[in-house]
């Protein structure tokens, strides 16, 4: 951090000169009880829901239960400093977080305070936004039609995600959920060159809820190494933070994202993960004595997630005319919530809730992961309900048969295990499927740009891979794409510019594929 001491003095002088000791009337209450991160406060008659409260010693709290003679609140800080009989003051302010460009490249906690040791954010009071905001209404939205490229072949080709969509990423522990998110962040570099000032740049917000601190550090390091941190905000409420911080972090991240969305920019926000958030919420609510429901979650656990995910949207172009709260139209916020399942059980309470809220899910399976199919996307039960409209035409055409081919392959694969007497067409389907499965494998931190995905998908669809031994498919891919970049850069460029792959392009791809195969000695 580079602080200029001379300027600090002059700023402090200015503050002192303009300081007016406002004497406002504040509501005060008395702490009745405190423990386990929650407190009951007597008094505070005109307290608002979600109001920020000040406890002695600089500890803050949020009012959640407004009852006849007391206020139940969660503490956002060191509860050991608070004792019975302490004076509690209301602030008249709903809990808010700083938002804006200054947060990009930073790691903050659920209250928006920086925790990366890089000094203050430098935001002003006007940058504060309440963490709970109503989602855009029906007229303020428009259908999702722009692609949000993840750079992951299996997803962009089969389960495309559009800007403003909510796509759930679901799977057991250790199936590559977080890795998928990091790859998505890295891939956004292609949208605006990684320059946060570029209005085309898709900004990223990674909300880590209940994660190990070491995991968060690792994510930040990966992003920094790949030059992706400059357009990313990391909101961290790790496992050792208070449960209240863990459940609020998602809303804080959403408010930071909405700021950009409302300015007409594009954001993708990742909640990693919502199951842990629900656990944190359950803890707080049980301590506040709200009645438990199924699996002891409070009754509003569905709303907890639906109101959060509903804030992801693609704003209408004329949104500012409808509601002056929006500075520009056309902005999007894409949500990629993560839910961890136990033993692949997608029919548990929280997973079914979030599946029903989102516009599709990407199911990661540990069997696939362990058999070397990485990313371990199960193409059979993964869907994207709105993303199809957001795929570029070239991709839609090239990858159109992919799902069916894979489905046929899986079906025949089961039969093929019993007998060796297979007719030619069955063998062809099996062969094609094998190559496709191999083609969809992808290393970590290696997103593939969309135009290269289109070329590969077209080559695969045209049967160029059928004669290549399965273990050499990825080698072919590497050589082929390199060859296309060197020899025919205009094809990739035209896919990017027009979104289409013409007949000339198709022929060229097939011809070049043969050339590369020749080079490989096939």
């Amino acid at each position, binding site marked *: *951090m*580079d*602080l*200029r001491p001379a*300027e*600090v003095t002059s*700023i*402090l002088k200015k*503050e*002192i000169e303009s*300081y007016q*000791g*406002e*004497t406002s*009337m*504040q*509501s*005060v*209450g*008395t702490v*009745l009880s405190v423990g386990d991160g929650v407190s009951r406060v*007597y*008094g*505070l*008659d005109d307290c608002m829901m979600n109001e920020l409260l000040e406890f002695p010693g600089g500890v803050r709290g949020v009012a959640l239960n407004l009852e*006849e*003679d007391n206020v139940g609140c969660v503490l956002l800080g060191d509860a050991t400093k608070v004792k019975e009989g302490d*004076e509690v*003051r209301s602030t008249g302010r709903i809990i808010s977080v700083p938002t804006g460009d200054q947060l990009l490249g930073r790691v903050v906690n659920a209250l928006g305070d920086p925790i990366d040791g890089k*000094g*203050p954010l*430098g*935001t*002003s009071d006007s940058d504060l936004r309440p963490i709970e905001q109503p989602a855009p209404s029906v007229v303020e939205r428009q259908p999702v039609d722009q692609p949000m490229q993840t750079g992951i072949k299996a997803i962009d080709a089969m389960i495309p995600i559009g800007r403003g969509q909510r796509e759930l990423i679901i799977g057991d522990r250790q199936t590559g959920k977080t890795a998928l998110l990091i790859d998505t962040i890295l891939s956004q570099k292609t949208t605006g060159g990684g320059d946060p000032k570029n209005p085309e740049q898709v900004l990223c917000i990674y909300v880590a809820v209940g994660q190990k601190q070491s995991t968060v550090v690792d994510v930040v390091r990966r992003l920094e190494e790949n030059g992706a941190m400059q357009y990313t905000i990391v909101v961290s409420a790790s496992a050792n933070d208070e449960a209240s911080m863990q459940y609020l972090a998602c809303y804080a991240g959403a408010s930071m994202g909405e700021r950009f969305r409302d300015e007409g920019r594009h954001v993708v926000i990742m909640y990693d993960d919502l199951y842990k958030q629900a656990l944190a919420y359950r803890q707080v609510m049980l301590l506040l004595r709200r009645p438990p429901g199924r699996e002891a979650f409070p009754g509003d656990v569905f709303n907890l997630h639906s109101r959060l995910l509903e804030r992801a949207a693609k704003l209408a172009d004329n949104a500012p005319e409808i509601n002056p709260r929006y500075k520009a139209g056309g902005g999007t916020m894409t949500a990629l919530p993560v839910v961890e399942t136990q033993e692949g059980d997608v029919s548990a309470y929280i997973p079914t809730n979030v599946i029903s809220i989102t516009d599709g899910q990407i199911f990661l399976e540990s069997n696939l992961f362990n058999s070397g199919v990485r990313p371990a996307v199960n193409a059979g039960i993964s869907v994207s309900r709105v993303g199809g409209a957001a795929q570029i035409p070239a991709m839609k055409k090239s990858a159109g048969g992919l799902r069916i081919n894979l489905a046929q392959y899986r079906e025949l694969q089961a039969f093929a295990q019993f007998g060796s007497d297979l007719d030619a067409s069955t063998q062809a389907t099996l062969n094609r499927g094998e190559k496709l499965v191999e083609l969809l494998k992808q290393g970590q931190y290696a997103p593939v740009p969309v135009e290269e995905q289109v070329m590969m998908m077209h080559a695969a669809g045209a049967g160029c891979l059928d004669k290549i031994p399965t273990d050499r498919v990825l080698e072919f891919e590497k050589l082929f794409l390199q060859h296309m970049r060197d020899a025919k850069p205009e094809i990739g460029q035209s896919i990017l510019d027009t979104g289409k792959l013409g007949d000339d392009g198709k022929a060229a791809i097939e011809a070049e594929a043969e050339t590369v195969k020749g080079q490989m000695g096939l």
Partner: protein
Amino acid sequence: MIVDPVTARWADALFELAQDKGALDEVSRDVERIAVEVGTPEVAAFLFDARVPSEEKAKRVGELTSGFHRLTANFVALLFDKNRELVLRGLGTAFKDRVLSSRGAVEGRVESARPLGSGELAELAISLGSKLGKEVLLENVVQPGLVGGVRVFVAGKLIDYSVQGRLAGMRRKLLDARLPVGN
């Protein structure tokens, strides 16, 4: 003292009944007497100890309430019948609050660095009263830590005119000041 809702309801009932029967002054005096008695540790230890049988408590309390107005005596006896003797603990405060609010008055506390004169106190009470639309009865507490000025707690509100409060406000403001951060 914090009044729980149960005590407040019992106090309400007693107050309204006393007012209807025109016995407010006597009942108030009785309640004050109860508050003083309950406030002494020996009596409290006896009354609120679960090991003491209810009949024993009722008998002793009956001796105390023999000189009371009929309403107060009945009230106390009913409390023991309903096993609500804990209401006695906060009764004094609850009843006083009720009497004050029926007059449109509130009690408040003024903290000041030095003792306030009665003139100053009255002036403050009048200006606060006009702001709140209520009659304000103030009690002065000396808090040298305030350095100067006053701090008023009234009707669940805090009005901070003290030097200490202003210093704390300034401290917060300076800590929140936007600092020039270079990259």
